[in-house]
């Protein structure tokens, strides 16, 4: 078949709906990647405007521009927007847009999930922007320390906007992370073994796994603080057995990994762009992968360095100080590997390279000041001064914004299909690169002289008066520079001439397609035998377009991709992806209903919206099943593969696996919080413990046994070709018993009496939710069995259910025992 005919056939199957409807119903990763990128850029502008307000206020002493209340909202929202609505979503956008193209796939593993995540981000962000415009924005600083943000000292709705809005946005990060993890592991080109994977794939994988393990502590903390604010459950109030330090631990357990979640994708871009512009390969690929992985692991052991001034025992300080300086090592490995790569090749001073150089100069300084503040005595002086403000901007702007700009200019021809013609970008670069240092070197110095962060003004005699004027002037030039970058991108995207394919001469697969890319990316999926397939075979793009790879065209009239074996990249399944649908946007709107109900304290809305979400979720998974075994499908080159829906481990199984991993870290954080309160909070033990009697523990024991045995029996029955109706019923009953056991805990305690009782309620609520979900799922699977949508081959739903059942049994039993144990022992 000719390339044109293939293109037409694929276009019919993969295209989004025309017109504005297309934006609402698209599930295509190229569309959604662009939408993520655009909205994140919008938030950068908003956050940048807030930064300008801050610098305008600080330009002169005793400025009457803002009072302390408004200033508090402005710095809190600046930090919050930049971290949660700009940096993380920008990574998501880059990954969503690029990953399938780099990996040689047509889309991500869960297209509807991408869309759902995007809309949660859009709606959650809108909540925060509404608060900002209405003048009721959060004002406790971006790390929201209680008791200042607790019900007594912050009774207004401001803080609730933060806790609820950010948690809503967090859903999108979790969705994207599951998506990225499964895509990197399972949806690559045939033959792309892990060691042939483009380096960005590794960085994205590490980042995604870090999101899955790093965000749960924050989500948990937000839930606990909101429960304290809404229902008086005293997690952070010392008089009732809470402790405000618990928040700091939960927040920084998230907050530190967050910094690396922001830095690693940027490092991934450096590792991708720099070798191409140096016309060579990356030096030390294996070392860089090892460095990225060890950064990911190490960064979970450092959170206490944000709490050096809270009175941690000296031994603890020494340990965390050592660990904090140690992360400089994998960072140094990467830096020197990159510089070594430049030495190895013949680097060209194109615009992306300029941004990379600026990244080096800035990020190295940020890293060095980072090592300085990891030294405890020094931190005792500069903590909470503008020195820290300057340090964090060197890291975030130098280590994230600059590499992202390098990436922007590198992939701009890909996004637009045009070549850059107007040279505003060079001017913009020099403005930004120079004025950034003018601004933030001055801010460093102001901090050393004693200017505290978050103070809304200063006197004319304060030593840092002049430095602030310098910083403000620098920052206005900086803003002009960024505005010129935006202008440059706009004019070059809209009116520049068409460019050639692969303008940088890169070796990775995203350049093997016409640009701007078609919705399906590749007319056929290439077989990969090299880390840089385009260098190994310059004719590859033509052969892909002619349909010489796998799954050429769309013969079966549906969206198809390949799933591969995790390590070797051998193709193992054909995955049929869903087409355009409004389900994701509708479901995220319904999810928004839950959050809105919590925010406005209209609690009747919450169960109602939850019910709608559940109904939509059922519809969501129902669409994945089929009515009959499809048998092996021809994928080209004589190969025949089963459909994912005919397999025991469809992508949904892998997605569930990682989601359960996330859920377990949330549960772990909860147990950590319980143990922390028990050992550190002043007013423990509580006046009385819950005494369980024997009935509830028996119920929990029987329930977990029933559920776990039931699901195993169901698997066996199905394997032998029989419908497992009774075993599935046992799973439902078992989950019901677990829920009932958890309810007795709530009945036996009073949620606001003491932190112990409050924790008991949360553990019980957690158990109800986690046992309730597989209970509901078992009913859906039962319905599927009755409708003949299960068979020995189409057993995926049962395997997925087993994951959730085992998880439910484990967390319910462990959680309830943790509450009952003190009662048993006394």
């Amino acid at each position, binding site marked *: 078949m000719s390339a044109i005919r293939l293109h037409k056939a694929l276009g019919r199957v993969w295209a989004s709906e025309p017109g504005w409807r297309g934006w609402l119903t698209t599930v295509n990763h190229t569309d959604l990647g662009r939408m993520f990128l655009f909205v994140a850029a919008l938030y950068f502008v908003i956050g940048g405007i807030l930064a300008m307000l801050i610098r305008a206020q600080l330009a002169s002493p005793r400025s009457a521009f803002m009072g302390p209340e408004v200033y*508090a909202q402005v710095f809190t929202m600046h930090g919050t927007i930049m971290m949660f609505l700009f940096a993380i979503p920008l990574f998501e956008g880059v990954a969503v847009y690029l990953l399938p193209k780099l990996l040689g796939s047509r889309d991500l593993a869960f297209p509807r999930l991408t869309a759902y995540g995007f809309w949660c981000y859009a709606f959650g962000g809108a909540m925060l922007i509404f608060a900002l415009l209405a003048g009721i924005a959060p004002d406790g600083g971006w790390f929201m320390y209680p008791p200042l943000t607790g019900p007594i000292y912050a009774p207004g709705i401001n803080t609730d906007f933060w806790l609820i809005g950010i948690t809503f946005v967090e859903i999108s990060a979790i969705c994207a992370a599951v998506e990225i993890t499964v895509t990197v592991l399972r949806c690559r080109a045939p033959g792309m073994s892990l060691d042939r994977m483009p380096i960005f794939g590794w960085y994205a994988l590490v980042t995604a796994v870090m999101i899955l393990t790093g965000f749960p502590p924050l989500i948990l903390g937000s839930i606990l603080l909101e429960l304290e604010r809404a229902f008086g459950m005293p997690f952070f109030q010392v008089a009732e057995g809470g*402790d405000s330090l618990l928040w700091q631990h939960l927040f920084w357990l998230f907050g530190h990994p967050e910094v690396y979640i922001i830095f690693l994708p940027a490092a991934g871009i450096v590792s991708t762009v720099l070798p191409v512009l140096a016309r060579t390969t990356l030096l030390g690929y294996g070392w860089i992968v090892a460095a990225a992985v060890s950064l990911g692991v190490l960064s979970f052991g450092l959170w206490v360095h944000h709490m050096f001034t809270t009175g941690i025992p000296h031994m603890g300080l020494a340990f965390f100080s050592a660990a904090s300086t140690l992360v400089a090592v994998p960072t140094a490995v990467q830096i020197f590997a990159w510089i070594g790569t430049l030495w190895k090749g013949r680097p060209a001073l194109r615009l992306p390279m300029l941004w990379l150089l600026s990244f080096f100069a800035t990020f190295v300084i940020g890293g060095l000041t980072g090592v300085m503040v990891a030294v405890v005595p020094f931190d005792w002086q500069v903590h909470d001064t503008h020195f820290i403000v300057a340090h964090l901007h060197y890291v975030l702007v130098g280590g994230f914004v600059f590499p992202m700009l390098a990436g922007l200019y590198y992939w701009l021809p890909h996004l637009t299909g045009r070549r850059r013609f107007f040279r505003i970008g060079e001017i913009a670069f020099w403005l930004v690169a120079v004025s950034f240092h003018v601004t933030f070197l001055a801010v460093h110095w102001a901090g050393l002289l004693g200017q505290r962060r978050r103070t809304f003004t200063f006197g004319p005699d304060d030593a840092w008066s002049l430095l602030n004027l310098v910083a403000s002037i620098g920052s206005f030039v900086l803003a002009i520079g960024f505005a010129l970058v935006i202008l440059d991108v706009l004019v070059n995207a809209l009116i520049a001439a068409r460019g050639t394919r692969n303008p940088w001469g890169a070796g990775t697969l995203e350049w093997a397609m016409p640009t701007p890319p078609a919705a399906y990316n590749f007319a056929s999926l290439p077989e990969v035998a090299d880390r840089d397939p385009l260098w190994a075979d310059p004719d590859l793009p033509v052969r892909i377009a002619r349909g010489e790879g796998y799954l050429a065209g769309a013969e079966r009239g549906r969206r198809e991709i390949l799933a591969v074996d995790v390590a070797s990249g051998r193709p193992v399944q054909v995955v049929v992806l869903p087409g355009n649908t409004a389900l994701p946007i509708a479901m995220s709107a319904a999810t928004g209903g839950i959050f809105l109900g919590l925010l406005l304290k209209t609690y009747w809305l919450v169960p109602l919206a939850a019910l709608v979400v559940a109904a939509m979720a059922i519809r969501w998974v129902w669409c994945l099943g089929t009515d009959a075994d499809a048998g092996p499908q021809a994928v080209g080159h004589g190969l025949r593969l089963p459909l994912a829906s005919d397999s025991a481990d469809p992508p949904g199984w892998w997605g569930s696996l990682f989601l359960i991993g996330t859920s377990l870290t949330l549960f772990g954080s909860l147990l950590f919080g319980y143990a922390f309160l028990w050992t550190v909070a002043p007013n423990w033990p509580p006046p009385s413990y819950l005494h369980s009697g024997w009935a509830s523990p028996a119920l929990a024991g029987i329930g977990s046994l029933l559920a776990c045995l039931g699901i195993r029996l169901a698997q066996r029955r199905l394997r032998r070709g029989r419908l497992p109706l009774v075993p599935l019923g046992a799973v439902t009953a078992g989950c019901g018993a677990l829920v009932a056991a958890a309810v007795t805990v709530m009945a036996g305690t009073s949620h606001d009496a003491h932190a112990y009782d409050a924790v008991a309620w949360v553990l019980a609520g957690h158990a109800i939710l986690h046992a309730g979900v597989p209970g509901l799922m078992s009913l859906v699977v039962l319905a599927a069995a009755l409708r003949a949508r299960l068979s020995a081959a189409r057993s995926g739903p049962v395997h997925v259910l087993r994951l959730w059942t085992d998880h439910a049994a484990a967390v319910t039993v462990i959680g309830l025992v943790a509450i009952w144990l003190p009662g048993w022992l006394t």
Partner: protein
Amino acid sequence: MLDPAGPAAETIARLWWIMLAGGGAIFVLVMALLLLAFRESGAEAGAGARRERVWILGLGLGFPLTVLAALLASALWVGERLLPRPAPEVVGVGAVARQWDWRFTYDDAPGRVTRGVLHIPAGRPVDVRITTEDVIHSFWAPRLAGKIDAIPGHVNVLRLEAWAPGDYAGASSEYNGPGYLGHGFIVRAHDPEAWRAFLADAPT
């Protein structure tokens, strides 16, 4: 903090100058290596394995490990010296923060409470026991020592010392609401007579 008036602050200020010099040197080194890559003379020759040894094992692993080990050792040593260890000369005082003032109590003058001004003897180590009645604050007198937080339900101890009599500015340095900017205090260091007079409740 760059103008220390006591041993703790002085130690930390010295640490800063040393780190600044070391950091500056490392920065210059890295930038030099970076810019040298753009020499006209073209690609540097050398086998892949050797290159990895030099860049990754040598510069990437060996170099930072050496520097950091030295830094950590000195930091621990410095930190150890700043700790509030028991000593005969030590004076004990209490500091209680709230939105937005500070109240101070004195072990040597029970019942004595001052607001906004902490009196200490010059030339003697002072342990300040710090806590709060409401939200989190932080006790910071930059010319004398580093800071430590005032956390509900917990008491943190900070060791400070002023070499000479005089007034030293102090401030809360953990954001604590709209009154944060003005939430300061003064540390007033006395010579021995004035300190005795203060303890005897003479007007100061």
